């Protein structure tokens, strides 16, 4: 079995951050935390993460812009990005994919479904 996958959680809401990070750790992920878009971009580009869970409504720069900057800034290795958006925001999925995200999921997070999506993007990642 390979080493623990590294997940970067970019989330400004403390409770969501706490809950998601702890649940991911329980499932064996190595979880990094960023609390705004700018920090998220920097960590995604330099932290050697396998997957980024990117909240779209972020202070400083929002999730879509952050995703674009990650795509623009990364060299060689491509990190998987899963966009997380609030329920019922129309067109978010398309917007997220257009910004360079690989997957999309709605909040509140259905944890089992999220795990499925993480597995999918990691499996298809080069």
């Amino acid at each position, binding site marked *: 079995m390979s080493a623990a996958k590294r997940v970067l959680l970019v989330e400004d809401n403390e409770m969501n951050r706490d809950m998601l990070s702890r649940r991911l750790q329980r499932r064996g992920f190595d979880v990094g935390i960023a609390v705004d878009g700018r920090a998220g971009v920097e960590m995604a580009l330099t932290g050697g993460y396998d997957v980024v869970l990117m909240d779209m409504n972020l202070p400083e720069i929002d999730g879509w812009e952050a995703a674009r900057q990650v795509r623009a800034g990364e060299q060689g290795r491509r990190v998987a990005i899963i966009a997380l958006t609030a329920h019922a925001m*129309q067109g978010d999925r398309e917007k997220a994919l257009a910004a360079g995200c690989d997957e999309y999921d709605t909040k509140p997070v259905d944890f089992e479904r999220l795990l499925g999506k993480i597995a999918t993007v990691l499996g298809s990642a080069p």
Partner: protein
Amino acid sequence: MPSRPASLASARQSALLRLSAEIAASLEEEDVCQRVVAGLRDESLGYNLIGVFLLDENTGERILRACVGWDHVQVGMRIGAGHGLTEQALRSKKLSYTPDVAKAPDYVATFPTGSEVDVPLIVEGEAVGVLCVQSHDVDAFGKPDFEILTAAANQASIAIARARLLVNERKRADEQQALLDSMSDLASALELPKVLRAVLNRAVKLLGVAGGQVAIYHEATREMEIVASEIVDGDFIGTRLAYGEGAMGIVAKTLQGIVIPNYNEWIGRPELYSKSNIHSVMAAPLLIGGRLVGSIATTHGDPARVFGADDLRRLKLFAPQAAIAIENARLFTNADRQKQFFEAVVEASPVAIVTLDMKDDIVQLNPAFERLFGWTPDEVMGKNLDSLIATPETLAQARAYTSMAATQTAKGIGKRKRKDGSIIDVELFGVPVTVNGERIGVFALYHDVTELLRAKSEAESANKAKSQFLASMSHELRTPLNAIIGYSEMLEEDARDRKDTASVGDLEKIRSAGKHLLSLINDILDLSKIEAGRMDLIIEPVDLPAVIADVKATVQPLIARNGNTLEVSAAATLGTMYTDGTKLRQMLLNLLSNAAKFTEKGTVSLSVERAGGEIFFRVRDTGIGITPEQMSRLFEAFAQADAGTTRRYGGTGLGLAITRRFCRLMGGDVTGVSEAGSGSTFTIQLPADSRAAKPAPELAL
């Protein structure tokens, strides 16, 4: 035969010449007769008595029209038919000579003795009178006398024929004139009772009769109503005769004129006239182009007066003119009544009504207009309506409505100004006024909707505020709820790791209740967004087989939970539709999860078809079914088949309400059919292309 002097011959010749000259200048019957007797009067001829009798066609009597040498009788004397020597000449149409009058049995004594020559006056082959010449002497006449008297009679006949022709011509001319007179003033009279009286009065005068009546025909009841009467003894106005009853009823039926000579013995006489002094009656129908308008009758009370063919001819000549006059008056009365009715309606209308001329100036307004705008008719008559009541902001709009109303119906809502400057909201309605094909102006209605609009806008903003509140509440509720669900899941996992089964069960209950609350909140959020008009459609190309596969995979665990099987029937060639894909998924999942929830160990099927410009999604189950009463409430928010259902099966009861609203937003619908106990089928029907879909705005008010 006695001999006479030879100069007699020349006396005869000169008498005849004189007579010819006299008669030639005469144009009247009476005058002709006088000139004949005057011309033959010559002492030397020995004609002691000369008379001209003319026949009275009606009675058969002979009337003495001129005479000389007959001192004890007067012109105008009548000799009854069957009497006198002149009868012979009349009957035979030949000269008759009586040499000794004393011996003649028919002789009506004038002179006790003498002889008489009677020569008929023949006009158009008919004997119309007799030239009668007597001598005091017995057998005083001879062949020369017969010749001269025959010649005189011939000349007199010609002159009488000419005079009669002239009289007839004049009579016709007079009748024509009388008719023309009737026509011109009857046509201008428009009040029906007056016209009827005038018509009857003309007829009575024209025909020289004692009285008469006019009845009009009521088509609906097939009755004749007596509307004018000049029969003194009786009140007939308003009395009705049946079609075919009495003289006027009969002519209405036969459409022919009728003369009844002995009315009192006539079998058809209505009881109504039993007390009237009517001896004879003549009646004619009043027709316009063959259509019955009424009848007219004239009467004589004098037994000596009898209606003849000529009277009937004149009545028939008069009848069409009378019919037209009556009909005109009737039409006008109807039109006038309608006009009065219409004016009363306008006066009493609670809606402000104003009439404009072609310059949009005020011509007429009703009391409701005065009340609404505060202007009296005197203040605004002739003023431009829009300049008067439009506000500076609405003047252009008001003018546009008014000019539109000049040619077609204009409807609108706008602000208008009252006399006191206050502003009101009005609903206006304008139509062109057209008279005889010519546009003469605009007819406009104004209805005060100030209160209505205020109530509507208050209701709308209250509704919007409610939806806004629900939307933000839902959003705010969700954040802590996420934490509750998330942490309870974590604790559940911990407890499972510790094999703490009691805690697992409790935490499971917290998580489940939280999820239910979350789905409720999400549904409320959807509904309130729809109701606030903030639910946007994202129309995109949607690959149907992909969506169906996706939905199938998602719903499969739920289907399996109750031991059901899922059958999907969708052609791989369904292709692409333009719709809101997210909402389509949500709707299909809703129908399928409902079917799965209410079915145990049965079959749930999804079939998708393209038909015409629409896509049909059918979800069928073999579950508990729904009664028609339940079905009717099912698409309302918070309705499940009954209150117990929610407890037993869970769910928010909002799914179908949301599905219906989504469908309608996209220009489609969802319907359900079911029989309690044998399953249900729900069908979503959506346009294959909703790019042009403009959901009908919710009806305001």
